[in-house]
């Protein structure tokens, strides 16, 4: 299939229609409701004092001058938090993280104290009046230094921790892989670093904590991609009864993984509200966001491909050294310490692979989040696509090398050497389409002519990436976050007038859920998408779910939506049988209507809905609603082939994109317009990471890139133009055949850009 053909009318607006977004009505009029737009009577404001140095012992903290400022209500230190057993909190990776430092500071930007004041300006005024006596310690700024032997112990507070190793992990069959390498005709190796990057949603993180002193009810307005999981973790961290916690995640100004972790500021603001009895608001500055909240990547990778004499891959091994910062707070499934990095075997068919990974503590900010990717899949995709390109340079054209080594369509479902079951794919068609769209052979010819005719002038480089993602966690047998199983949920209520409300456990950050999830219901029930309200982000009013990250909304929440709509349709069938005085087995379904087979007698879903509340048969419960908790049988495996053509000036090393084609296959496309929008955004992210978007540190552990002047984010001027293509290979196990797409382009494209630059210089 090359496109998703709609089966419903445009008026119904089911799957495959580019329905314009419902959420736009408020957004284009400046009527969104973001965290900082919410204010409560009597609210106080919090500002956080952060460490100016990367590693130091705290000898003393004197808050008296800050306390004396008019308008300051309280100054909170680690000592006060410790008195309430809240100086440390668990991370999503089974480690602990300081809420406010009590013993040492372990990275620049770490939270040391907080001021609560009547006005945000006053809160910030008081920060420099807090006197902290730091005794400087040697900063550890690279994982190599950290594990080098004579580095200071960063986590000296942690019982049993005698070195700076955060974790070790492995996957695959080492001895089978060693055998493959022993037989190899050629071995190609690569050492590379995927630099630290920061998701930087345009809206920073924040909280408005409102603990009612009379009832103990805690209403936490929170920039959260996973409000239900956060409610449970808050209950565990803060010791509050879970029924007393309501998390409301309002409109989010982007997330990209940055709003998955629980940050110390959330805990301090909640504790302050609890102790003071007034609402407390904390909104991060951009610098705070960049220096202290969840970064992405920072993977040092090396590895090898074993090739036979015909240019076929017969084995692969890779080793990761990850820079975790001071606390191991990656947001990823418990069993998988390096996330799903073992998807690093890529789109290729070979029997043996072995992956090992080790994480190192350093004096940098913690929080390796899945920055617009499934857990560590970007790093994996980057590594294999760089390595394959290097192998191709030794053997044959990189496109030909990929076509020769791809998993073939008839091999799906395909078990990878590290144990993934790829659900479906047609890699050859996607790459061939991309080559045709960009005129691959023509560019190779122009590249050769340029090299021959003007060897000292600007050179052309052509880069390919043929990625395979793994998204949509879980199943719940294998995947959990902090013990919470990775299913997701949908609750559907059809109102008497045939309109409906859909409540979800996932949470949009701009992906357009209010439109696309309504389209899934429209597809299944024939109720126009415009008549279906989608609600998310309020834990008191939506069913439990693990939230939106790792491209899991459509694979899991979307599946739950389709399945709950099918449950409702089955009840509608019983109601229709009652209304039509026919057997339920004699009814036929078409979108929006049941008819008696062979007759023109029928009832619409709207008539059925009305009957559910006005004329339901004896013995049947009234109403037309249901809930589904969907536990996916497998992950989904979106894929694609991207080709970039660059021109590089060997004089100064600058490069520009001459053309780029991105062919994506995310299975069935619910709303093609929204899918293409996400791909274009993701390609821009990939371009940025290949080009400019790095967070670096100096040797003292100072973060270089703590604002948008130093941390380069592409504007429209730098961003290249992209051309998009598609193939459609539905997921065989997903109820509507969709795979998820929000992250494909971020995962796949960085290697294409880098491969193109390397190709130009080759």
């Amino acid at each position: 299939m090359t496109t998703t053909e709609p089966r419903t009318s445009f008026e119904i607006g089911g799957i495959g229609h580019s329905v314009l977004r419902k959420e736009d009505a408020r957004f284009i009029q400046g009527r969104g409701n973001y965290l900082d737009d919410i204010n409560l009577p009597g609210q106080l404001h919090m500002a956080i004092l952060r460490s100016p140095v990367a590693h130091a012992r705290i000898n003393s903290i004197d808050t008296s001058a800050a306390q004396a400022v008019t308008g300051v209500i309280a100054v909170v230190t680690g000592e006060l938090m410790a008195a309430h057993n809240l100086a440390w909190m668990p991370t999503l990776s089974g480690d602990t993280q300081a809420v406010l430092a009590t013993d040492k500071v372990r990275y620049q930007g770490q939270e040391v104290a907080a001021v609560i004041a009547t006005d945000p300006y006053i809160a910030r005024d008081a920060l420099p009046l807090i006197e902290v006596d730091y005794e400087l310690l040697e900063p550890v700024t690279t994982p190599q230094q950290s594990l080098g032997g004579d580095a200071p112990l960063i986590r000296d507070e942690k019982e049993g921790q005698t070195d700076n190793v955060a974790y070790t992990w492995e996957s695959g069959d080492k001895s089978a892989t060693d055998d493959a390498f022993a037989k190899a005709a050629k071995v190609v190796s690569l050492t590379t670093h995927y630099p630290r990057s920061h998701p930087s949603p345009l809206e920073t993180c924040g909280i408005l904590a409102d603990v009612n002193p009379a009832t103990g009810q805690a209403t936490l307005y929170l920039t959260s991609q996973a409000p239900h999981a956060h409610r449970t973790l808050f209950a565990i961290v803060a010791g509050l009864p879970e029924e007393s916690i309501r998390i409301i995640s309002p409109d989010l100004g982007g997330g990209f993984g940055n709003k998955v972790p629980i940050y110390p500021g959330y805990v301090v603001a909640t504790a302050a509200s609890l102790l003071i009895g007034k609402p407390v608001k904390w909104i991060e500055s951009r610098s705070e966001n960049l220096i202290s909240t969840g970064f992405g990547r920072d993977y040092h990778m090396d590895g090898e491909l074993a090739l036979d004499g015909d240019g076929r891959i017969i084995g692969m091994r890779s080793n990761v050294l990850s820079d975790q910062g001071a606390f191991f707070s990656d947001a990823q499934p418990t069993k998988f310490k390096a996330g799903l990095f073992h998807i690093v075997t890529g789109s290729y068919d070979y029997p043996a692979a072995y992956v090992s990974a080790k994480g190192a503590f350093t004096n940098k900010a913690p929080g390796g989040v899945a920055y617009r990717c499934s857990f560590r899949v970007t790093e994996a995709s980057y590594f294999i696509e760089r390595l394959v390109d290097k192998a191709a340079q030794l053997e044959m054209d990189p496109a030909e090398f990929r076509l020769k080594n791809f998993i073939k369509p008839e091999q799906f479902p395909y078990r990878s050497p590290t144990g993934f079951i790829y659900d479906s794919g047609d890699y050859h068609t996607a790459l061939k389409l991309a080559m045709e769209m960009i005129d691959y052979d023509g560019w190779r010819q122009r590249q050769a002519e340029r090299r021959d005719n003007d060897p000292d002038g600007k050179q052309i480089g052509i880069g390919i990436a043929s990625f395979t993602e793994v998204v949509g966690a879980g199943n719940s047998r294998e995947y959990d976050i902090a013990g919470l199983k990775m299913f997701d949920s949908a609750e559907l209520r059809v109102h008497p007038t045939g309109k409906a409300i859909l409540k979800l456990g996932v949470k949009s950050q701009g992906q357009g859920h209010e439109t696309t999830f309504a389209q899934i219901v429209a597809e299944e029930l024939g109720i126009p998408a415009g008549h279906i309200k989608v609600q998310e982000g309020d834990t008191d009013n939506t069913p439990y779910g693990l939230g939106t990250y790792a491209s899991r909304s459509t694979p899991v929440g979307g599946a739950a939506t389709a399945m709950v709509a099918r449950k409702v349709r089955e009840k509608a069938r019983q109601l229709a049988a009652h209304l039509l005085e026919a057997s339920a087995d004699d009814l036929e379904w078409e979108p929006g209507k049941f008819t008696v087979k062979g007759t023109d007698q029928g009832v619409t879903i709207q008539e059925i809905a009305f009957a559910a509340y006005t004329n339901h048969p004896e013995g049947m419960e009234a109403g037309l609603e249901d809930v589904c908790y969907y536990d996916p049988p497998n992950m989904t495996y979106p894929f694609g082939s991207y080709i970039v053509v660059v021109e590089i000036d060997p004089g100064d090393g600058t490069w520009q994109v001459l053309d780029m084609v991105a062919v994506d296959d995310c299975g069935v496309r619910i709303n093609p317009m929204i899918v293409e929008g996400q791909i274009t955004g993701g390609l821009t992210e990939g371009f940025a990471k290949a080009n400019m978007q790095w967070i670096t540190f100096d040797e003292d552990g100072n973060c270089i890139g703590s604002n948008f002047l130093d941390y380069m984010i592409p504007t429209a001027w730098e961003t290249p133009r992209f051309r998009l293509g598609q193939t459609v290979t539905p997921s065989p196990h997903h109820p509507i055949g969709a795979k998820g797409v929000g992250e494909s382009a971020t995962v796949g494209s960085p290697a294409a850009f880098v491969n193109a630059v390397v190709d130009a210089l080759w």
Partner: protein
Amino acid sequence: MQITVKINGTDYEGDVEPRLLLIDFIRSQVGLTGTHIGCDTSSCGACTVIFNGKPMKSCTMFAVQADGTEIGTVEGLKQGANLHPIQTAFHEKHGLQCEFCTPGMMLVGASLLETNPNPSDDEVRWAISGNICRCTGYTNIVAAIQEAGRSIATAGGSWS
């Protein structure tokens, strides 16, 4: 200090500290929250307003500098029941995802169209190069601004 600022045609008076940023005056004192804070350093453009007829970043101006001026925000784009063509075009061309940048993008786009009703792709990209979007990759924002230009031209150069 006493200031009076005309925002979207209405006079707002305030007694402000000299250090109060204009964005905080607009958001917290006037209560118009469509204008956003994204970076604090004039880099992202989420705080863009129309200041005496020109796009300006309100996160690095003091409210007192706006005394006696006229300011337009996203809330003032719609005239009566009629959306501004730039609003319609952002919707129809899918020029927004999370929306945090959208008010700034629409105001800069609308301002560009006043002097250049039919801008090229490059002209639009240059005009919005002081505004960051983290979601869209800009393609549809450019298309939306150009589409709004065509709509205004079709309406005879005036839309309200």
